[in-house]
């Protein structure tokens, strides 16, 4: 008896030590995630500042805050308030929307290729929005509603076509529908009387150029509702990405997955309604954030990565090529596609294996 007591007392410090090790090991990813998010926030702020202050018309920081305070500085006020600032704000908002929406798709469908811009959801939103804008003359909230309708229709169609077969079949069905949606958009372009380059660039490739503050207001209001809802619904994301059966076994029903997918679709749709289907942002943000987060899914970081991508892409498109003002969608498409090809070339694309690799 005493012996046993002795031994127990002897092992106690060791047990406590072991407990500390476990606790530390469990906390490490959380701490890493916090550091990552802090770093990404800094990156977003830096990119935002560069987008607003630098470029072909430089604004000093004191001037910027004076303009924000309502002071009229000839020239500068107009450029900042009507061109640079709305572009930067919109870039951040759509980046977050696409990044989180894309990561939700990729995680719940458990395939890095199953992002809304590859499976046609973004183009579905764009097709509905451009029809509403160009053919019916809608503006403001109704455009967002049309985009949501288009995105949901494509998402449901892809889902019903793919059935229980996720993976490749879902991707291929999505690619087919994306082609169909692109045809719809191109048809709308041939219907408008005047060949409007800006219209084409916005709804076919995505652009944050020349957007009204009211559009940004609509997007910000919707995101203010959708993002907290997503944070709430994503609590069990780590379980969800183990697969439907496992998740159900662990007490997380498929209803939660459906809700998450709905929120992801809505996020992408409202982003498209404001800036068009900016290519590959939703596709790129998730895997990049996951790689930065040591292989763990993180929606928050994905949203921030999306914001950085759109900000940097817009800046590069506007200033990197001498006298050429490229919309952000061209830049992200031109540099996102090689990444997609690289992902394809790197090997196994079966959902599960590919997920771990990404």
């Amino acid at each position, binding site marked *: 008896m005493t012996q046993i007591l002795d031994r127990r007392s002897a092992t106690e410090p060791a047990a406590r030590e072991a407990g500390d090790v476990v606790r530390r090991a469990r906390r490490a990813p959380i701490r890493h995630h916090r550091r990552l998010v802090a770093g990404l926030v800094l990156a977003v702020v830096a990119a935002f500042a560069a987008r607003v202050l630098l470029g072909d018309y430089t604004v000093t920081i004191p001037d910027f805050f004076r303009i924000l305070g309502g002071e009229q500085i000839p020239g500068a006020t107009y450029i900042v308030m009507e061109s640079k600032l709305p572009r930067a704000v919109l870039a951040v908002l759509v980046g977050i929307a696409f990044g989180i929406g894309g990561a939700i798709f990729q995680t719940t469908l458990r395939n890095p290729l199953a992002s809304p811009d590859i499976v046609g959801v973004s183009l579905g939103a764009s097709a509905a929005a451009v029809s509403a804008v160009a053919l019916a003359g809608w503006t403001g909230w109704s455009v967002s509603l049309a985009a949501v309708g288009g995105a949901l229709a494509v998402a449901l169609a892809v889902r019903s076509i793919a059935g229980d*077969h996720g993976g490749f*079949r879902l991707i291929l*069905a999505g690619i087919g529908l994306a082609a169909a949606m692109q*045809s719809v958009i191109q048809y709308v372009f041939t*219907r408008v009387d005047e060949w409007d380059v800006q219209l084409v660039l916005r709804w076919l490739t995505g652009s944050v150029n020349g957007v009204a503050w009211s559009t940004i207001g609509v997007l910000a209001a919707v995101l203010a509702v959708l993002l907290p809802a997503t944070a709430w619904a994503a609590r069990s994301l780590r379980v969800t990405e183990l697969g439907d059966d496992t998740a159900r076994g662990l007490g997380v029903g498929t209803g939660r997955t459906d809700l998450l997918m709905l929120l992801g679709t809505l996020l992408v749709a409202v982003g498209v309604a404001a800036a068009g289907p900016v290519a590959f942002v939703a596709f790129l943000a998730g895997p990049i954030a996951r790689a930065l987060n040591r292989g763990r899914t993180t929606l928050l970081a994905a949203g921030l990565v999306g914001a950085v991508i759109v900000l940097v892409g817009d800046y590069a498109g506007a200033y990197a090529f001498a006298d050429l003002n490229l919309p952000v969608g061209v830049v992200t498409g031109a540099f996102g596609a090689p990444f997609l*090809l690289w992902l*394809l070339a790197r090997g196994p*694309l079966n959902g599960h294996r590919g997920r771990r690799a990404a």
Partner: protein
Amino acid sequence: MAALVQTRPDTSRPLGGGSRSRFATPTSAAIAIAVLVGAGVLSLLVGARWVPVEAVWDSTHPLHPIVEVRFERTMLGFAVGAALGLAGALMQGLTRNPLADPGILGVNAGATFAMVIGMTVFGASAMGQFLPLAFVGAAAAALLVHAIASLGRDGATPMKLAITGAALSAGLASWTTGLLLADRKTMESFRFWQVGTIGGRGFDVLLAGLPFLVVGAVLALAGARLLNTLALGEDLARGLGRRTTRDRLVIALAIVLLAGTATALAGPIAFVGLVVPHVVRTLVGPDYARVLPFSMLGGAALIVVADTIGRIVLPPSEVQVGIMAAAVGVPVFIVLVRRTGRAL
């Protein structure tokens, strides 16, 4: 032993699917040609302005000029459709991939991109300059897609090829847009061509492309036996004495000529090459000696019918043939995905 002899592959019989041809070849040929002629006649008569039949041969008829314009358009449609149908059948045979199509696998996007580079950077403006560019672009895209999809243990599966092709198309579309933005004038002339259209192109365009189409078609039709043996698989084909590498190169050359010319003439039109061979196979069976010529006829008929319907389906505007092709092709693509998805 007798059983062994019977299992010897007989290329005149349907392979794989086991569905025999529904009609004898002469009957099928008669039906196909009748459909083709009917499509051509309708294409002359139907449009925003309907033309009475007598205007076709009566050169003094007030509506005769409309018929002449539509005749050019119809001939171009026949040529482009035949090339696309044939190219699709060749690609499906060469890659043994039911989802192969010059549009889906990125070949058209490659040709488009090369032509836009030619226009904006080198100032190319004549069809004679576009054609070689289109060939180079089509060949480069086909090689790239095939190389990337072939990496990995399971090789170039239909799914990987289709996804790689879509990825390349998306990337090239962005680069194309970027180049066009630098050159607004090119963009204006590019506007309808980029969607895929056979209207308002004229005979000289067709004549410039015709020699390449003929060479491509001859190579393709000579390749029917190659495809039949390739359909048995690489090892069996080699065992039967085929030099598979050379055979593949001949067919690949035909695909590049056909798809490249079609893109140069009418813009990137997808899904025709996908749909037609599948429909043809259900009608005449899987023997490529029949599939290839019937795909030619079927592609020609499909493009012209799609173009004719596109003129009247949503008045007052005209729906480009590329859009109509997608409207027909996407449902077929989805059915095929559902069917092949089960096997993967």
